[in-house]
């Protein structure tokens, strides 16, 4: 489990930040994206993927969450 931060990117998408490793990436897809259920698997543009427990869609971004790593980036 790691702390991550999700924020609104300038281009309208979501961006992912892992403070521990100073890793920035944009989120390519998010498993659930409805007002009631938001989260699940996050696919990153660097090839990595993380899982966050689905929650109600946060009213405001950025938000810090705990995430589980599913697949590492290929660097």
């Amino acid at each position: 489990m790691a702390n991550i931060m999700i924020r609104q990117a300038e281009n309208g998408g979501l961006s992912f930040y892992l403070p521990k490793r100073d890793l920035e990436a944009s989120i390519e897809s998010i498993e659930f994206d409805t007002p009631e259920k938001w989260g699940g698997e996050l696919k990153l543009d660097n090839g990595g993927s993380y899982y966050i427990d689905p929650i109600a869609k946060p009213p405001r971004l950025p938000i810090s969450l705990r995430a589980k790593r599913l697949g590492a980036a290929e660097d």
Partner: protein
Amino acid sequence: MSMTREQTEALISEVLEVYPEKAKKDRKKHLAANDTSLEQSKKCITSNRKSLPGVMTIRGCAYAGSKGVVWGPIKDMIHISHGPVGCGQYSRAGRRNYYVGTTGVNSFGTMNFTSDFQEKDIVFGGDKKLTKLIEEVEQLFPLHNGISVQSECPIGLIGDDIEAVSKKSAVVINKPIIPVRCEGFRGVSQSLGHHIANDAIRDWVLDKRDGQAYESTPYDVAIIGDYNIGGDAWATRVILEEMGLRVVAQWSGDGTLAEMMNTPKVKLNLLHCYRSMNYISRHMEEKYGIPYMEYNFFGPTKIIESIRKIAAFFDDSVKEKSEAVIARYQPMMDEIVAKYKPRLQGKKVMLYVGGLRPRHVIGAYEDLGMEVIGTGYEFAHNDDYDRTIKEMGDATLLYDDVTGFELEEFVKKIKPDLVGSGIKEKYIFQKMGIPLRQMHSWDYSGPYHGYDGFAIFARDMDIALSSPVWSKLTPPWKTAPASAEEKKAA
């Protein structure tokens, strides 16, 4: 000469030829020909990795990132370099963070405070010494507003408890004391020091005035990550104030502790150096809902772009004033460009700096008709290169944490008209006959930021390039023997 992709790649492999196999493989990942079609820099360049043992890197340590960059410029605090004397003494006042105030009375920017560790402190621990030092500081400099304890390598190695000392002494002197765990051995470069320093600000400073009454206006902004090198932050402030904004805080060039504590009240954080202060900006965005934006005031093109981008966050009165600012300075800018562009047109520049400059100053050079054909960072991360790719021309050279040898070879082969780097590179290249401007300290000049700065920037680049000394590199006895004989005959 503009190089094609093949030429640039051939150059990189040629330079890498001298390394042993393993080193070659590692360094290859840090050198690349720019590909403007890429969105992600990691496809062509690797960054923020440990430097190779044995090569000459010009990176700093985490202590340099915290004490030297982030904390050091906060002028009304005393920053104790906790550990041996050298780390602080040899870097003292080298960054040219300008400030107003009386040094030694209410400002302490250029002074060096250290616990001067000796053998016995390493053996028995330095906590007592630190306590005593803080008492002395309080007695000798009663007008300081707080203390930060900047750990040097030994502190982490011997396991001193600076947090406990700080908490206890803070009660005694009744001023904030902030322990910073920025031992030099942490991380791969000064970059982690920035992060640690930001976290210390978040934990020990930022929320100290939350809930206190504060007279705010809808136009409050903070300048984040401008260290006022040669007065850069002041040149920025002038523009922002003319736009009708109120600059509440300057982080951290010419800044104070109180300004930092007031920052959570602003409406927008203006981020100059993304690399060293994005951490605290993110935190404020999440906790206080303050948006942040990266701006660039180098050269008129970028200034105008940034002014409009900033104004978009505010109401029409700011937008109107911003247009008026742009219009008012335009003739001044046109005059500078008209004067210097003909002299500088087409000149090629190679840069190797840190933080934000390898990408931010590109626009200023382009405004003068010059072209940046190679750039690189000391301690950038992938996201910095993501942004750089779009600023640079296709197939130009990118180098990350470049070694002394590589940079020298690149410059020898590419033969730029000007190099922008630091003091360590300056005399090597000038002896090779290539003018160099220090782009860390603005070569004892500055500011280069803002409208006022551009005038100085243009003049300095012209001075560097047009100095008559460059025509005297070949000694007279080696130039045109014919003319010498003529003289003899006459």
